[in-house]
């Protein structure tokens, strides 16, 4: 612990010189990185995409996060050293560990785990107390209720209790919807804050059948926004749920609801908040993803700050975007509880005159866990997770998921699917949640569930022609690299096992994927049929849950396959700063 503390001190001192962030300026003791200079008259605290990670975690940020077209080389599509340079972070600092994948394992030993709700609670309470009552609001951008075995079993109810104790006053959603309408509504009955979504409407059939809605005139299912008085000024917070829920997930979870970005409805709502309700500031609490938010900020006017999530981008400073009404700041606050965003606003009548923004890494080594929250977490976990505590494998390398194309976690899942289901090829979704495990550390079923716990985990085996396989790869690849951010759904490339291919991200759909080969080097034929295993299908499937398949595989003592799943050769993106050198 003493060594760790010294590491933090060192890193804070050097970072202060190069970054000049106020929180690092008085680094006389480690915890002072959380001393934020008083600024303005209102403080908004923002968490997002915590994925129900109650305890501190290791989470390696991506080493590949390619942006193409207008998005090339711009945040959030910077990784490694390009990221450090852009944001002025020293490569051996704690912040470099928190924000990038550089020397991850080495730094993990120095700086420890991040996040955890008991640690977050301590930090949040401190930052609220610093500015006093009636000057702060805590908001969450969604993906709060999903990501662990516990949350899956409890359908997110554990996280509602945690959110209430944490003091979340408003949230929006994404994976929250995958528990279905009834479970969502049951949870919201218990949630003390507001669930906001300006972009979820009844389908015409549901409206005709008089389905429940917040506002039957507009068809809006949820309250679109709240207005809170902060520091004597009126601040509106609008919720923007993930726009593509019924496309990215099985439609059966939300049959009565239709989503979308809904720019026009958003603009009208912003105009009404400003014109009719005379608010002094408008904040969009968004689960669009950062590229979508950057485009939206250029087209919708009157929003001061978009507090963003979904794409799990930890971006230390807001990006300013010009639009017809002025400038909108766009942020993205990372994932898994690693970060707490602090937005300090200087509010005047009808306007925000200045802002300061900090994306604080939640170093669990530096924060004393809040006792009440620690007790609640223990109480929630105890009856459920003991069944998952058996050590089932000890990987010989770092396990992580985040990267655009491949990651060791998904290589393992694909190896398990191919072996257990006797398939030539495996496909696994490119989720961006899921934890990192250090090499040589035993993993448990709870760890497996933290990579797989969803409400549609059923595995499948089906025959697909080579042409169909290519079409799937092309379709998902377009979700990442479509030149228009509004045509991206977020997430990373579908993972493949037993298959290698080349990818040209800058090409158009239909011509990005080439050179498809089986692991034995034989070219995939467009007309031949292949046995393909997978999970998380948007169509109903009947196979065993993927966690059971992976658990069985690991328990049998098997691990990585000799040929490490698929190899993906990238073309046409040499020198892209979204690829770590």
């Amino acid at each position, binding site marked *: 612990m003493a060594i760790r503390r010294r590491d933090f001190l060192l890193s804070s001192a050097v970072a202060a010189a190069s970054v000049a962030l106020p929180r690092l300026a008085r680094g006389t003791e480690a915890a002072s990185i959380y001393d934020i200079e008083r600024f303005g008259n209102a403080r908004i605290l923002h968490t997002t995409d915590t994925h129900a990670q109650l305890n501190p975690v290791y989470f390696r940020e991506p080493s590949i996060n390619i942006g193409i077209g207008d998005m090339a080389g711009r945040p959030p599509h910077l990784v490694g050293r390009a990221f450090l340079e852009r944001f002025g972070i020293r490569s051996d600092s704690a912040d470099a560990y928190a924000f990038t994948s550089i020397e991850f394992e080495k730094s993990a030993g120095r700086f420890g785990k991040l996040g955890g709700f008991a640690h977050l609670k301590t930090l949040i309470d401190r930052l609220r107390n610093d500015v006093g009552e009636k000057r702060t609001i805590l908001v969450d951008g969604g*993906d709060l209720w999903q990501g662990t075995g516990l949350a899956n079993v409890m359908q997110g109810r554990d996280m509602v209790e945690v959110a209430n104790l944490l003091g979340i006053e408003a949230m929006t959603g*994404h*994976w929250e919807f995958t528990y279905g309408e009834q479970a969502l509504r049951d949870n919201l009955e218990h949630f003390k804050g507001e669930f906001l979504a300006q972009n979820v409407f*009844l389908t*015409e*059939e549901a*409206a*005709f059948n008089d389905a429940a809605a917040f*506002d*039957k*005139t*507009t*068809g809006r299912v949820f309250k*679109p*926004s709240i207005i809170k008085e902060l520091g004597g000024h009126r601040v509106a917070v609008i919720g923007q749920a*993930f*726009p*593509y829920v*019924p*496309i*990215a*997930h099985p*439609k059966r979870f939300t049959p009565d609801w*239709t*989503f*979308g*970005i809904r720019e*026009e*409805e958003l603009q*009208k*709502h912003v105009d*009404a*908040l400003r014109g*009719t*309700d005379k608010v002094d500031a408008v904040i969009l609490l968004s689960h669009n993803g950062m590229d979508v938010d950057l485009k939206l900020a250029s087209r919708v006017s009157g929003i001061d700050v978009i507090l963003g999530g*979904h794409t799990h981008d930890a971006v230390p400073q807001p990006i300013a975007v010009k639009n017809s009404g002025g400038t909108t700041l766009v942020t993205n606050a990372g994932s898994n509880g690693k970060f707490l965003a602090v937005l300090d606003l200087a509010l005047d009548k009808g306007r925000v005159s200045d802002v300061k923004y900090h994306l604080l890494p939640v170093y669990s080594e530096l924060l004393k866990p809040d006792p009440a929250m620690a007790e609640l977490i223990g109480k929630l976990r105890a009856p459920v997770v003991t069944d998952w505590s058996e050590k089932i494998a000890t990987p010989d390398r770092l396990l992580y998921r985040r990267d655009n194309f491949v990651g060791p976690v998904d290589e393992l899942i694909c190896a398990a699917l191919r072996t257990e289901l006797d398939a030539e090829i495996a496909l696994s*979704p*490119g*989720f*961006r*949640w899921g934890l990192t495990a250090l090499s040589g550390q035993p993993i448990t079923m709870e760890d497996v569930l933290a990579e797989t716990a969803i409400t549609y985990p059923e595995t499948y085996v089906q025959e697909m022609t080579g042409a169909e396989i290519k*079409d*799937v790869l092309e*379709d*998902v690849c*377009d*979700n990442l690299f*479509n030149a*228009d951010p*509004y*045509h991206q*759904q*977020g*997430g990373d490339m*579908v993972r493949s096992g037993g298959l290698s291919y080349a990818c040209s991200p800058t090409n158009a*759909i239909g011509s990005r994927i080439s050179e498809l080969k089986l692991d034995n080097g034989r070219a995939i034929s467009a007309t031949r049929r292949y046995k393909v295993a997978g999970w*998380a*299908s*948007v169509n109903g499937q009947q196979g065993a849950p993927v966690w059971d398949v992976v658990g069985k595989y690991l328990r049998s003592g098997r691990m990585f396959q000799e040929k490490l799943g698929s190899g993906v050769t990238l073309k046409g993106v040499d020198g892209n700063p979204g690829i770590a050198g």
Partner: protein
Amino acid sequence: MTVHTGPHPTRRLILQGAVSVALIGLGNLPFVPAHAAANDKYPEEAFKLKNEADAIKALYGRTAEPSDKVKLDAPEIAENGGVVPMSVTTTLDKVSSISFFVAENPNALAASYKFPDGTIPAVANRLKMAKTSNVTAIVEADGKLYSATKEVKVTVGGCGG
């Protein structure tokens, strides 16, 4: 606080149903080729053509100019390619027809509506889309053609996030 964004959904559904019925009813009328939208005949030839430009020519006999007075509302990504909701409204006067073209569908002309004098020029319908495509709405107003185009993505789905 209430923000009114349009007609009551229920009412919109009924209106939409009425237009669909009328469109099907037109199917029995005899075919007259040229400038069909300008008269009362069913534009059978235009509906049969594959290419968008050919279909526009067959339907209207001329080309349209893009206009910000035509508002085409369609999703960025379709939630179900089989039934993609789209609507057109316009601030143009003397609207006599509104037509929808899906460039990548097997037959580009998807629907064409006629507006008697004094009718509010608004139409909402659901179109079947084979794949990702530009959708073009053409409004015929005071004898001239105006258009708006939006790309609608059709995807097999999956995630993400």
